[in-house]
């Protein structure tokens, strides 16, 4: 629908339907949003603050409830025949403007203010005169300009995940250009956007071109690339409306704010997706991507390599692309700016302008960025079953001993193959060999987390060295270890990174050598607090921080987690006697 003609046709269709008075789209929209939603929590709050651009506001901003107005208009069969056109004007091409009564041209502040005041108030007045229930009609400012509106936003950004993508693809299965229904490309020849003809030519996510704000590109027509918000609302809502209006016997997507952005509606969408998408359906979005790759610099850079010798940096990282695809909802999760290889143009070892001078090393290891490997893995560590151990640990790449987890060295033969591979620049020709090498290097990785044999794990550990007001605490040691292993038994990520048997012990026995018999806590943590500030806690705090911190991070405080009969709840942090009985005086 990206070509102008088609878009115009659809818009005209929408307007025509409204003219006929069908308004069939609205009941459809309401049906999707028929969840019992509290009126105080809304996804349709449009904050009218356009006057901000003209200086300090003399009145609070207006919380405008979009769905409330759409619904109200839907009931006005004779009074309002223009539907969207009541508030939204269209330009000469018939493209609807998303701004209220906006011509798409900049206007003066006074004009903008009058635009809202005259139109809103007069509409309310007209409706009141016709005996309809309506909004504020008087000139009391705070009727609309309420600094403390009694509604709160529960707006959620909409993510087109793989299942939703699958459903959209399914509806376009029989269309002439199935991807082109949504995805378009800019044609230099015709000087305008055209539907993407083939799956391989699809540029990927809308966000690759449509930014947060509308961008202007000189020397091309159309000059403006709409912001993601405008593009999404202009296209998605229009298409949903048109499909509904066309009267075909197909269910269509939401057209209200809450329909896409309400948390309950989003849950409903996810549930419908689960029902509609057949079990075992191939959700993989195919763009000709490989199953395995080597993450490496695109080219051997002269500044970093001696002629005739291979690239002197880190060994390349073997990467299971297919597995990671299955674990991410969208391609954008990693490929945030384009579908191409990270290192091809943007993230070179030295950093270039195209990649915001973020080096390849930074792009892979930056913990703050969710698109980086370390950043995404750090997010995974926030899951309750992982957070107990990982919450107090430093995030991201720790010591150099951790490098081998990803920069797999491999055996001698593989190392040689890698050296010769790194000497050549990455290209389509080398892709197959790289994929093969990556697969071989990954073959030795653990799939599941394992630890020492169960009989080597002490059943209980009695902590009593500080016992004064309380009896010693008996720690169900083996039970804790087993609960931790249960929490990660299905995680390949955990398996690959808990590479040694002692790795899972390190959550509690931190900073001590990885061993079956780690030293006692008291070896490092002194039993008596001193008046000198120290980063290392004294023994009492060390025990409490470790135990309570883990329980809190895992969210198991005060809950019964064991499935054994008669299991007691995990003591809450303030329940002293839950861990150690009070001594009788």
């Amino acid at each position, binding site marked *: 629908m990206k070509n102008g003609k088609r878009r115009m046709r659809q818009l005209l269709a929408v307007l025509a339907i409204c003219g006929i008075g069908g308004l069939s789209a609205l009941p459809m929209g309401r049906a999707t949003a028929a969840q019992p939603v509290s009126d105080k929590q809304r996804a349709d709050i449009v904050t009218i603050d356009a006057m901000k651009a003209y200086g300090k506001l003399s009145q609070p901003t207006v919380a405008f409830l979009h769905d409330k107005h759409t619904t109200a208009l839907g009931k006005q069969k004779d009074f309002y025949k223009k539907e969207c056109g009541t508030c939204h004007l269209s330009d000469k091409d018939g493209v609807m403007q998303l701004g209220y009564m906006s011509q798409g041209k900049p206007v003066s502040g006074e004009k903008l203010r009058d635009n809202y005041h005259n139109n809103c108030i007069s509409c309310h007045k007209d409706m009141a005169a016709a005996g309809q229930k309506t909004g504020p009609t008087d000139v009391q400012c705070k009727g609309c300009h309420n600094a403390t509106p009694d509604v709160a936003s529960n707006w959620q950004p909409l993510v087109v995940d793989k299942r939703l993508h699958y459903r959209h693809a399914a509806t376009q299965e029989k269309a002439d250009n199935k991807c082109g229904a949504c995805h378009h490309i800019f044609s230099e020849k015709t000087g305008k956007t055209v539907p993407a003809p083939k799956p391989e030519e699809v540029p990927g996510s809308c966000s690759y071109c449509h930014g947060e704000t509308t961008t202007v590109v000189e020397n091309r027509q159309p000059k403006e690339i709409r912001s993601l918000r405008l593009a999404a609302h202009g296209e998605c809502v229009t298409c949903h409306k048109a499909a509904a209006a066309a009267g075909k016997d197909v269910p269509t997507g939401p057209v209200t704010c809450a329909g896409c952005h309400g948390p309950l509606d989003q849950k409903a969408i996810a549930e419908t997706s689960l029902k509609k998408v057949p079990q075992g359906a191939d959700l993989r979005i195919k763009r000709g991507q490989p199953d395995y790759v080597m993450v490496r610099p695109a080219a051997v850079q002269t500044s970093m390599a001696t002629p005739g010798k291979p690239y002197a940096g880190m060994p390349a990282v073997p990467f299971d692309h297919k597995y990671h695809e299955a674990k991410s909802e969208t391609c954008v999760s990693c490929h945030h700016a384009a579908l191409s290889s990270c290192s091809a143009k943007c993230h070179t070892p030295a950093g270039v302008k195209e990649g915001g001078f973020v080096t390849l090393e930074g792009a892979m290891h930056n913990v*703050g960025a969710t698109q980086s490997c370390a950043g995404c893995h750090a997010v995974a560590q926030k899951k309750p079953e992982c957070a107990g151990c990982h919450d107090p640990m430093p995030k991201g790449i720790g010591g150099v001993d951790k490098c081998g987890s990803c920069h797999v060295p491999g055996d001698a033969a593989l190392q040689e193959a890698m050296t010769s591979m790194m000497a050549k620049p990455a290209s389509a020709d080398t892709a197959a060999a790289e994929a093969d090498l990556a697969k071989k290097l990954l073959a030795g990785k653990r799939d599941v987390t394992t630890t020492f044999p169960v009989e080597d794990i002490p059943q209980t550990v009695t902590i009593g060295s500080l016992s004064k007001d309380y009896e010693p605490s008996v720690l169900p040691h083996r039970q804790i270890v087993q609960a931790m292993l249960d929490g990660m038994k299905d995680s390949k990520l955990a398996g690959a990174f808990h590479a040694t048997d002692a790795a899972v012990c390190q959550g509690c026995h931190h900073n001590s050598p990885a061993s079956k018999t780690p030293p006692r806590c008291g070896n490092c943590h002194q039993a008596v607090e001193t*008046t*000198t*500030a*120290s980063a290392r*806690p004294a023994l009492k705090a060390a025990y*409490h*921080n470790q135990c309570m911190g883990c329980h809190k991070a895992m969210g198991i405080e005060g809950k019964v987690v064991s499935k054994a009969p008669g299991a007691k709840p995990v003591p809450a*942090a*303030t329940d002293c006697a839950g861990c150690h009985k009070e001594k009788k005086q």
Partner: protein
Amino acid sequence: MKRRHFLGLLGAAGVTLGSGATAKAASLGDVKGLPNAGGVLFDASRCIGCRKCEAACNQVNDLPKPAKAFDDLTVLDATRRTDAKTYTIVNKYVPDAGKPPVFRKIQCNHCMEPACASACFVAAFKKSETGAVVYDPDVCVGCRYCMVACPFNIPAYEYDKAFTPRVMKCTMCQPRLLEGKLPGCVEACPKEALVFGKRRELLNLAWDRIGGNPGRYVEHVYGEREMGGTSWLTIAPKPSFAALGMDENLGTTSAPELTSGALAAVPAVAGIWPVLLTGLYAISKRKEKIAESEKQAAVSAAIAKASADAEAKLSEELAKAEVANKRRIEVEVKKALEAAAKAGEEGEDA
């Protein structure tokens, strides 16, 4: 007080008012003289709201028992403040609905340049070298300027004591500090949510924690600069200190700097006369008190001196008398000997 005394004092006050800048300089100098001041770092992300610090404070300071026991955590459901019988309290905050609550311990922040001290005209409050802001009830006149001045609303008044009311607040356990012990609350905390140490070391520790846990803490150490800095430092989990009921807009100017300039001249305003006069009355009363005690001291010193003098004189006299006696005896003995010798001579002769 005699009218003449009063007018004299008034004149003296006028001279003091004119020299506000001196007060400022002096107060800044005081702080620079405390490079090793101690303090406490409170980490709200570690506090579990167990109220052990409250119980310990109550115990080590011999405060009256509270209405509800310290292990009753339902008191956390209401927002509380410190009072004359409670030097510290823990309050519960829920910055993000649906997420676990955050607890904050409230007590005197022991400002580096305390507002209570700068507002107090009898110097009942003093910043000690341990870092504690200590209070001397013997000189306090009960004007409660300190309570008005404190930006953290901490000092509380013993309204129920008609004759010897005191201003009560956390002492940072000054007596314990002087014995080399930790403040009661710090020692009792099971999580080391409270750490005692030198203020500058605590600042390092605080920033290390903030830097070492990206995204967890608000990137700010509350008390590093607030009101010119406080000995009690606070770090808190995101989103903000305001979410824990802390005033984020106190500014970095210390109270003495704020008041010793233009505000120092404020008592000249007509409306403030009663306050000034009460203050002057109090000062004169205190002066009388001091004069009285000085007089007493002088009298006792004089008596002591007089008796000492008398004693010295007596012993001197005695010594003199002894010497005289000795001499007399010697003379008598000599005389006797001479006489005997003479007699002997005469005898021999005879």
